[in-house]
């Protein structure tokens, strides 16, 4: 996150992607990352909050005051949301990955795609 155009670290990318689906607190983020990667990526609490600290410092995410789920609300939990900058970074990184996938397709190295679940 030092250079604006450097690829995002994998954990950061997954966290941003999870937040693109709505505001989340820590554990919900971990669960969402695991689910959207079909179980391939698991982020532990330490990795999560290390990344969150850097994402907050870089202004890609922000803490939110709104409580999206009053049913399961817990005063101790902090919820996070994407900022405008964060959404832009996520979009740039997704575009970068999409270009790579395109190249992979042209070079015929992409096997049949596994069916993705609806995100």
């Amino acid at each position, binding site marked *: 996150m030092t250079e604006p155009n450097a690829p995002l670290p994998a954990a950061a990318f997954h966290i941003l992607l999870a937040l693109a689906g709505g505001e989340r607190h*820590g*554990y919900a983020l*971990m*669960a969402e990352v695991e689910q959207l990667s079909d179980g391939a990526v*698991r*982020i*532990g*609490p*330490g*990795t*999560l*909050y*290390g990344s*969150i*600290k*850097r994402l907050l410092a870089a202004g890609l995410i922000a803490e939110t005051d709104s409580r999206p789920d009053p049913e399961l609300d817990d005063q*101790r*939990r*902090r919820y996070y949301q994407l900022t405008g900058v964060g959404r832009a970074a996520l979009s740039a990184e997704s575009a970068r990955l999409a270009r790579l996938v395109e190249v992979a397709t042209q070079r015929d190295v992409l096997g049949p795609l596994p069916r993705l679940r609806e995100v």
Partner: protein
Amino acid sequence: MHSRLAEVYRALTAAYPPALRDEFRDDMVQAFTDQLRAAGAGRRWAVLASAITDLARSVPRERWEALRAAPLAATAGPPVEAVRVAPQRRQHMATTRRRFLRHSLALAGAGVGASMGGASLAFLWPNLREGFGAVIDAGTVAAVTEAVGAAGGTWAVPQARSYLVAYDPADDPGGEYADVTGGTPFMALYQRCVHLGCRVPWCTSSTRFECPCHKSRYNRWGEWQDGPAPRGLDRFTVAITEGRVLVDTRTVITGPSRSGAVLDEPPSGPSCLGA
């Protein structure tokens, strides 16, 4: 139980640099507790182990980040007049080196601690899902029936460290083995000799299990015939679920006493152990 594991995890997060710890420790412990809750009773230790793996991976990175991010000014001495540039620089370097060494030491300590802790946990890990010590799937009823028949009434199931032998309740009028066979036509015998623990092979010529170590002999149902063994072979419960034969190796069932033999099958030929 949750709170105790959470306390363990909270103590371990002390390895993180203060800046991260002060701000997010409670959140980390909260996320860990949430994981425990979601995982359920049987998977608590798995959650702790994966949290420790995560710790071992992320602590070095966070320490390194903290070291890189720490402004040098914060560790340098008080502002000094421009004339005294040289001493200031030396003092400044000394402090950085000390900081560097201290961090390296903490890092090495954390690394050693994490790997030792991880290894001990992995060692203590109960194997509850597969392999010996779990419920072993020996195959479909048809396949097991065929294998047992083809091998002369006994068939080795290595992953269960057992022999499956054909069991006919008609030969067991007293129902001695009704429980252990669970209404199935199979009995599972633990391959370990109850004398001193050698693996006991099946001798096809004598139709006996014959221990090569001290010549204990057992019949096809693992009942003691002669030799130093104090009783018959130990065994495991068998069940048939959804058409598959399951051997439950979680509990070893003590074999029948020397006088408790039920199966009346004389040896069919010469012993494999010689005279």
